[in-house]
């Protein structure tokens, strides 16, 4: 465990943008503004009546918000999210009282979930709103649309105030507007210009408005009528970031029936779920001596781990996290010491060899951050095994060098065309340890909804140093004969994944999902889910149906070749002593015939029989361990534990 947390800390360190220039805290706040109107509440029927696809745009939007909220609890535990409904009959804004109708600051704006790191309670509330059919009347009442139109200016200013008070000084603040109304103030010029002014306020505050337009069945959403006056070209918080406007205005306009509407909205919101945070910014990419352009680095692939456990204080009304405070003390005097007094030393020959802080820094310094190309190689030169960690993604920036983008693009296109990689000397940050890396070009990939899945750019893959390469352990090679290979080829052909490609979006991390699912259940005092929805478990039925016969053929061939190759000598080579017995038993126990395990089938039978007789505890530890290991169970512990585990195994199975 110690090592786990150690490496994780290191990763976190790497993850953080060490932006010393900004006074802002690197956090993200997303406020959903969902239009509640009659058309938004009208379910769009599904073409397939068997599927429950009836979905109104509003409930699709709420489902997306709920989905994003759950997702961000896992992926961005410190970022905020909120939901503001507008166009509702009722109004709610912090302490304001519903009864003083005349004094409401933001009529027809209903701040359903305040902008904050979500609590379990808020997750639950949002869930009930997202499926109003199952909800109480109170909840449904919230979704009652107003009879008079809502002022967009008011809604925008309401959002402004929520951001100003709840998320001050955040580096990223975003307002997600979901609506099917492309012309809110069709006949009121004054209201329109008031809205544009309030939108400008948001821009100046550093809030980015992102529009998720929904087309009506008989009317394509037209952003040019109103929203083009509201939305700005650049992101206010990240002025240099290249704006990606295409899907906003065109392809990702959600439309059609309920289900496809939900899906396209989900995919569009997902693609903007994370604020773009750079791993390093404006690092020179040195293409040749004295020829530099600037690039920004991003982590597009990063292992998501569950948050570490912490200590919880339950003495008060609500449980709260206890914050650990570490004090450093001198071992000889027991006195508290300041960080500045600490020296670093290495153990050597029974003593410490020490360096001053300046020397320590000098030792770690190999020059300024750089990505320096030292030559090119064909892509095929990069072996499959030459990998040590996730890659970094780079994209050009015009901040330091004008013309970076066109040069980067020329290099990108050349590397793609010629299937080459660049070998680079890579120092991502000041005082980071340099690595030798392969820089490869990645092409843009678009999903079926027209939303970008993989951006175009270059990937920097750190290579192992000679120190990091392990020697292969000894292993005996028995090369399979052609017939056996052919049989296996048939199996492999049967079991290709869809499109013969690995698509990560199809495989949520089962332990991560389960972890948070359980936490949610505990936090909301709900029943635990029965079994996890684990998409990574192989589809056994399919394997059996599609490849079963081929596997049997392969097994027969394996037996044949094995007896030809090893014949009687098998007994002498290994623990396969009991192989003979197994072959005989094969007729009786067809379930074991495909196995090439060394464990004797005797063990399997023996344990099974003992279990039936209730005498598992009479078996030897060796037999129990062998049985448990063969079934992927832990083999640690005392004999009683092993017996327990074996019995559990059978109980679960039958």
């Amino acid at each position, binding site marked *: 465990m110690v090592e786990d947390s150690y490496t994780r800390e290191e990763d976190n360190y790497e993850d953080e943008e060490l932006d010393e220039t900004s006074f802002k805290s690197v956090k993200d706040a997303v406020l959903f503004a969902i239009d509640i109107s009659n058309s938004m509440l009208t379910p769009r029927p599904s073409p397939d009546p068997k599927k429950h696809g009836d979905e109104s745009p509003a409930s699709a939007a709420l489902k997306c918000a709920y989905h994003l909220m759950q997702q961000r609890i896992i992926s961005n535990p410190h970022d905020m999210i909120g939901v503001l409904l507008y166009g509702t009959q009722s109004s709610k804004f912090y302490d304001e009282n519903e009864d003083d109708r005349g004094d409401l600051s933001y009529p027809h704006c209903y701040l359903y979930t305040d902008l904050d790191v979500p609590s379990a309670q808020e997750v639950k509330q949002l869930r009930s709103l997202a499926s109003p059919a199952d909800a109480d009347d109170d909840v449904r009442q919230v979704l009652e649309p107003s009879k008079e139109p809502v002022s967009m200016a008011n809604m925008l200013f309401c959002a402004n105030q929520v951001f100003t008070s709840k998320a*001050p000084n955040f580096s990223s603040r975003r307002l997600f507007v979901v609506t099917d109304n492309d012309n809110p103030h069709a006949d009121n010029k004054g209201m329109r210009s008031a809205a544009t002014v309030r939108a400008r306020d948001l821009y100046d505050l550093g809030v980015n408005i992102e529009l998720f337009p929904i087309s009506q069945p008989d009317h394509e959403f037209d952003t040019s009528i109103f929203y083009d006056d509201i939305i700005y070209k650049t992101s206010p918080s990240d002025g240099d970031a290249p704006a990606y406007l295409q899907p906003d205005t065109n392809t990702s306009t959600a439309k059609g029936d309920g289900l496809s509407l939900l899906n396209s909205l989900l995919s569009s919101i997902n693609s903007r779920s994370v604020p773009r945070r750079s791993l390093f910014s404006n690092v020179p990419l040195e293409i040749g001596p004295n020829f530099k352009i600037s690039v920004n680095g991003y982590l597009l692939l990063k292992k998501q781990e569950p948050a570490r456990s912490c200590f919880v204080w339950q003495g008060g009304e609500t449980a709260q996290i206890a914050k650990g405070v570490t004090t450093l003390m*001198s071992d000889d*005097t027991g006195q508290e010491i300041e960080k500045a007094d600490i020296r*670093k030393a290495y153990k050597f020959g*029974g*003593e410490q060899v020490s360096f001053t802080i300046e020397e320590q820094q000098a030792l770690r310094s190999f020059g300024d951050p750089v990505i320096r190309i030292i030559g090119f190689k064909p892509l095929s030169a990069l072996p499959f095994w030459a990998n040590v960690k996730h890659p970094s993604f780079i994209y050009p920036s015009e901040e330091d060098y004008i013309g970076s983008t066109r040069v980067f693009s020329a290099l990108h296109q050349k590397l793609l065309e010629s299937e080459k990689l660049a070998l680079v000397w890579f120092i991502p940050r000041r005082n980071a340890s340099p690595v030798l890396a392969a820089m490869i070009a990645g092409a843009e990939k678009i999903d079926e909804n027209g939303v970008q899945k993989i*951006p175009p750019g270059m990937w920097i893959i750190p290579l192992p140093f000679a120190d990091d390469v*392990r020697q292969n352990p000894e292993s005996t090679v028995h090369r399979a004969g052609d017939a056996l290979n052919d049989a296996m080829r048939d199996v492999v052909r049967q079991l290709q994944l869809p499109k013969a490609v690995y698509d990560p979006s199809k495989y949520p991390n089962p332990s991560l999902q389960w972890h948070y699912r359980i936490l949610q259940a505990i936090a909301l005092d709900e029943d635990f889910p029965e079994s996890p929805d684990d998409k990574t478990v192989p589809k*056994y039925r399919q394997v059996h149906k599609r490849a079963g016969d081929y596997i049997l053929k392969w097994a027969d061939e394996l037996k044949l070749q094995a007896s030809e190759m090893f014949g009687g000598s098998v007994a002498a080579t290994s623990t396969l002593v009991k192989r003979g017995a197994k072959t005989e038993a094969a007729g009786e126990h067809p379930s074991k015939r*495909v196995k090439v395990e060394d464990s004797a089938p005797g063990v399997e039978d023996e344990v099974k029989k003992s279990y039936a007789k209730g005498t598992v505890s009479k078996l030897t530890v060796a037999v129990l361990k062998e049985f448990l290991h063969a079934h992927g169970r832990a083999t640690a512990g005392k004999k009683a534990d092993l017996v327990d585990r074996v019995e559990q195994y059978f109980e679960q199975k039958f």
Partner: protein
Amino acid sequence: MAEKEATVYIVDMGRSMGERHHGRPMTDLEWAMQYVWDRITATVATGRKTATVGVVGLRTDGTINDLEEENFSNISILFGLGQVLMSDIRKLRETIKPSNTNRGDAISSIVIAMQMIIEYTKKNKYKRKIILVTNGTGVMSDDNIEGIIEKMKEVNIELVVIGADFDDAEYGVKEEDKDSRKAENETLLRSLTEDCEGVYGTLEQAVSELDIPRIKVTKSMPSFKGNLTLGNPEEYDTAMTIPVERYFRTYVAKPISASSFVPRSGTEPGSQAPVKGNAEGDALASVRASRTYQITDESAPGGKIDVERDDLAKGYEYGRTAVPIEQTDENVANLQTFAGMGLIGFVQKDQYDRYMHMSNTNIIIPQRANDNASLALSSLIHALYELESYAVARLVTKESKPPMLVLLAPSVEADYECLIEVQLPFAEDVRSYRFPPLDKIITVSGKVVTEHRNLPSVALKDAMSSYVDSMDFVTTNDEGQATDDLPIDESFSPLLHRIESAVRYRAVHPNDPVLDPSERLTEFAHPSEDMVKNSKSHLEKLMSIADVKKVPPKTKGRKRQRETEKPLSGLDVDALLSLEPKRTKISTENAIPEFKQTLSRAENIDAIHDAVQQMAKIIETQITHSLGHSNYDRVIEGLGTMREELVDYEEPTVYNDFVRQLKGKMLREELGGDRRELWWFMRKGKLGLIGKSEVDSSAVEEEEAQEFLAPN
């Protein structure tokens, strides 16, 4: 468990070793000791008790050895076989100096070293070695040399002879005008080592190879032993099960880690010249960390109270809700899993993007001594190889460990077969950040543009293409033929080896400054000179066509982007703003936008001053009314915005005047009490004075700006 070692170094300390030869800046002894110290410290660095070292001085003034014979005079055992510690290194450093004599027989010293080893190692299993370093000028006698050779072979001692200016045709060293006795000695030593099947070399080579990093070979242990399955053997009789083992293929070697120490009490705290050398080891006391736990309690002074560790339950955060987990079901949040590697399906090699590799790599080999498993796995490896496919599998290395998704690729070599395994990303591991295409520009209206200042012209693409083609990185094999490999075997972890050699160097030379990294470590920091020369003309052409211009530091920042501060439609919102009747005063609730807008509308300096005055007042009010730190984030945002804007408008003085006053008021506690925490936030956010380096017209020198933010 590494093998036990017994190595005796014989160092020639004769008078002639104190001389400088062939224009070298150091004496022969100093030169030789570079090699000896490197080897000894490398052994010390392992920290192994069983890696023993002995040191014998040859041609010493006195005689310290058990063989009290004339033949063995002027040979001293300086350090008997054992683990070398720092104190021993210090003693040896004092002792090893050129003597005043040239008497002493090298061959006799070898006999003494043999004697030491035989006595120490007895019949036990040891790696035995004698390393003689000499300039070969003394008198040597070949009496009973056969007996020595025989004994050397019998007890299995490796003899290494390294000589200063010894001729070595292979390495290309030949000493001109060699002394005839030295030539004789060289011949004698050479034939001796050859007869013992030892190593004979010249010192120049030995020293030059010191900076080739030595790689620590780590024996891999299996990280998983279990079944590779296709289908579910518990449920279907058509499932395939192959017992396999998993080992690291790559694993990042970490540099040795430093521990924290403080100067021991009694030594003056904070004295910057630490006592190096002898007292060093004792002057440091180790650091202990103690952890206490606090919770927020608004009623307590300071808003926090300490709680006992024992009163706390383990738990997790779900959003901002704390979720305690009772001890009884501590594992409830862990997914139940069982060990195994289950194949999910197969993918096409050319459909896989190499950048999806998420981890270090492992190899999968058949279970040891299981011929059937080996045969079965071989067929899978070959089937994948022939079909140009990879397998995707779910791997759980131990019961209850989280499942991983891994990609399995076939590796077929002449005498080795295995699967190479690497982790794949899960859905949550992919972050979708979007970026515009690189080969076209899509305008706001959806039009596709292919000619643009951000897109390369045909000429630029051509120039890039020829440059890339001229910069092939050439690797060669042992025969000197060009290969398609990356230079992985020749690249060494710079940090790891630099720290390691710095520690060893400091151990022997406590008062020297730290050295630059050796050339070997930075070999790949730059393209080779040859390549640069070859591609020079292509690069020049590329640079001239690319026409990349460095942005002068001053024009960086937001100003350039002002022109784009318009909505997509291009509507002039500024015009609308100026029509807003209400916006003459900056309001507290919408302060930041209105401040910015007021500035952009300002027609004279007074208007700017006025806006700053208003903003300053709002900020001071926010501070005064802040309960604890409740308003600090807003204050920092307001200050930061003010500072940024006034830098952009090149009006540093107004900001500087304000922030000076503010600092004073805060530290004098005139703004609602103790505001030191806020001052700390301001320092952290670098919201101090605007100096000359930021805005030319600033009257504040850099030192003053730094001084301003210094901790008081």
